[in-house]
């Protein structure tokens, strides 16, 4: 009884995931990454909260990946202009974020 219900649910899930995106595994990745993030950040030295923020800033400029696609693919011009502006904004964050983080971290001496 229960087994057949599970089987039906599994069949249903397979049917749903035939689309291009496997939403459940994306959600799964998101939840796991959040827990890892919480665990790792909790242990960050309190001295370094300012550089931490500029470092995570640079890392979240991973939006560069989306911007690259929108700018470089064979899309209409207007779409690519939006992409180019986004790419510029992300790149600025990557460059200034990593550089200033390193500049600050260099100053923390015993």
């Amino acid at each position, binding site marked *: 009884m229960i087994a057949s219900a599970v089987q039906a649910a599994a069949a249903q899930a397979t049917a749903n995931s035939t689309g291009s995106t496997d939403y459940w595994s994306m959600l799964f990745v998101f939840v796991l990454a*959040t827990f890892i993030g919480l665990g790792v950040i909790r242990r960050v030295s309190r001295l370094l909260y*300012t550089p*931490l923020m500029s*470092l995570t800033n640079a*890392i979240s*400029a991973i939006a560069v*990946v989306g911007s*690259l696609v929108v700018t470089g693919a064979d899309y209409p011009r207007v779409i690519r202009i939006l992409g180019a502006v986004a790419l510029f904004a992300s790149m600025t964050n990557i460059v200034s974020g990593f550089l200033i983080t390193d500049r600050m971290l260099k100053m923390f*001496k015993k």
Partner: protein
Amino acid sequence: MIFSAIGQLAAIVATSLFILALNWMNDPKTARRGVIAGVAGMLVAVLATWVQPLIVHHGWIVLAIAAGFVVGVPLSLVPLTAVPQRTALSHAFGGLAAGLVGTAEFFLGLGEGGGQLTHFRTAALTAEVILGFLTFTGSLMATGKLQEVKWIPQRPVTYPGQNFVNIGVLVIAIALGAMVTANPTAPWASQAFLAVAALSLLFGVLLIIPIGGADMPTVISILNSYAGLSAVAMGFALNNKLLVTAGALDGSSGLILSIIMCRAMNRSFVNVLFGAFGQVKVGAQATGEQKSWKQETVEGAAQLLEQARLVVIIPGYGMAVAQAQHKVRELYDALTKRGITVKFAIHPVAGRMPGHMNVLLAEADIPYTALVEMDEINPEMPQVDVALVLGANDVVNPAARYAKQTPIYGMPIIDADKAHTVLAVKRSKNPGFAGIDNELYVQDNTWMLFGDAKAVLGELVKQFSAGSGLH
């Protein structure tokens, strides 16, 4: 096939490197390794995306990347006192990128007939645009306030019904987004989507208008979290796991920092965002007899310091404004040379962003081992000979312990009042940010030094270098 494998592998490698980068931030000794890991992860991600066959136009990419370097390098060289506004500005850029990519993807989907716009994908794009654009304008407002741009009011701006208006705008944006999600290809969908974008931009402005300087550490942390979440939404929309993991790391970092900042002010998120802290509350004046300040001369202060064995310096935003950190270093040197132990007591919300004081003091070459957290220093305060309060105010106000009618009630403070003697350097005789009198300044054992922190410390250091003039 091979390109898909490259993409997947790059996502795994980059995610691992980002986690390592954050992990190495747990100690100043390993932290710089973290930057290298972060750069490596980003390089892997960018290259693996760039080689994909989907990407056929390279000119604009090169141009945009070059422009990013042209603007990014100078932004990384700002003076460290300007780090809060640089951080807020980079949150704005992050939000802008997410909002624009979300908008582009939606209209791309519409242009292709809407087949790509499933309900889930449209929901993700809507979330990306709302989070991205509200982070964009909200962070720009925060940047303006921190930079003290003239046409942006520094003091919180409040009006009757403000929370009603703010929440109303957000609710309408979300409702429109839900309608678009339900009918992504309806004839009105593109207008509705643009309206969602516009309302989100408006909401960002409205959200920050009532926020004042002392709340900036919390607000910057919350915006940091939103910038990360908008990248997560982009990941859902583009079916890209790397965006989801990196965004989630950023989002959880912002979340933890906001929680720490809120706890350090004894307030809730909701209270920070909708409580309009910093309005001068008239009823909050201290009752009882009005005591007055006792002013001390620089010579007297130098003598007090010289006779001490343990000195604790409590820096606040006033030190940052006066750029006094290098003078602090000179005083630190003068005192330690005489065998006096000097420690720095750092309140979590001192300054305008998390960790602000630590970075400024590190810039002045003060060893990080001398920087002590509030919870560690407080048990030691009764043994402290001189507590030197340097442009800090609300974080040392004893009223936080009992004055229920004040906005700072319940906020943990550094127990400066328990030191044998308190020396307070203060720019003016005005009350602090919260608009409440600080009774620490009128205590029997407190002596005031009025003036710009840098100038006062300069005078103090001169007393010591005159050296033999003192006993």
